[in-house]
């Protein structure tokens, strides 16, 4: 087994364990910490794939900003242990069936298309940060400007939603 493959399996196991832990933990703050483990493992996988910029953004935005927001809200609302209620009829057998069907469909599609994706020769410069910024500011400049508008709307929405109503 080569070194990249070993690193891949370690990081993949870490990500899957974190995701399973997110499901099994009863307390939301434990789930949030499990999700941070998944995100750091995914950042490692991005580094392995040669996407340094995406790995850095993953750590800074996901691991830093978004998860801090989650932990902050959990502490603000003083969220306790998840209370057990009987599952609704929709979430019981049909939900499990849906998950299994989706997993089977995805697995079958991947198994069928094994040969269709050939690993391209590693070109170090094409996936570099300058390549990304060239594409972002030339080909995708309108979507990029639209995302700034989206963030503005989201900030306004969050402020309006979370402010105390005057009564």
């Amino acid at each position, binding site marked *: 087994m080569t070194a990249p493959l070993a690193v891949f399996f370690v990081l993949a196991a870490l990500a899957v364990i974190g995701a399973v832990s997110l499901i099994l933990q009863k307390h*939301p703050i434990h789930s949030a910490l499990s999700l941070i483990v*998944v995100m750091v493992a995914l950042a490692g996988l991005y580094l392995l794939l040669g996407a340094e910029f995406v790995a850095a953004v993953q750590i800074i935005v996901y691991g830093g900003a978004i998860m801090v927001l989650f932990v902050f809200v959990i502490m603000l609302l003083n969220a306790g242990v998840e209370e057990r209620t009987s599952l609704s009829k929709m*979430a019981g057998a049909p939900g499990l069936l849906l998950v299994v069907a989706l997993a089977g469909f995805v697995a079958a599609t991947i198994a069928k298309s094994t040969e269709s994706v050939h690993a391209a020769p590693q070109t170090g410069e094409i996936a570099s940060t300058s390549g*990304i910024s060239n594409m972002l500011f030339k080909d995708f400049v309108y979507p990029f400007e639209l995302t700034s508008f989206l963030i503005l709307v*989201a900030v306004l929405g969050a402020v309006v939603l979370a402010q105390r109503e005057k009564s």
Partner: protein
Amino acid sequence: MVPTNYYVILSAILFGLGMFAFIFKRNIITIFMSIELMLNAVNLAFVAFSQALGKVDGQVFVLFVIVVAAAEAAVGLGIIILIARNRQTLNVERVDLLKL
């Protein structure tokens, strides 16, 4: 070189786990976190295909997905705070005003 298939299979596993958590968890914050898990799984597939095809497009899309996820987290957590304030609970079973 790690085969691209491995990355896509890992992405599918993570997406399935996220969907499982989305359906079976009862805490609204945990449900929100499982959505983030699914978005991360899709991001992994994007980057893996971007590397396999030797194009940068996939990584640019990942940046857009992260931006949308950040905006979604801000608005969604605002809604969660409102629900917690009005209903005094975080359990989705008890947020049932639209139910007959």
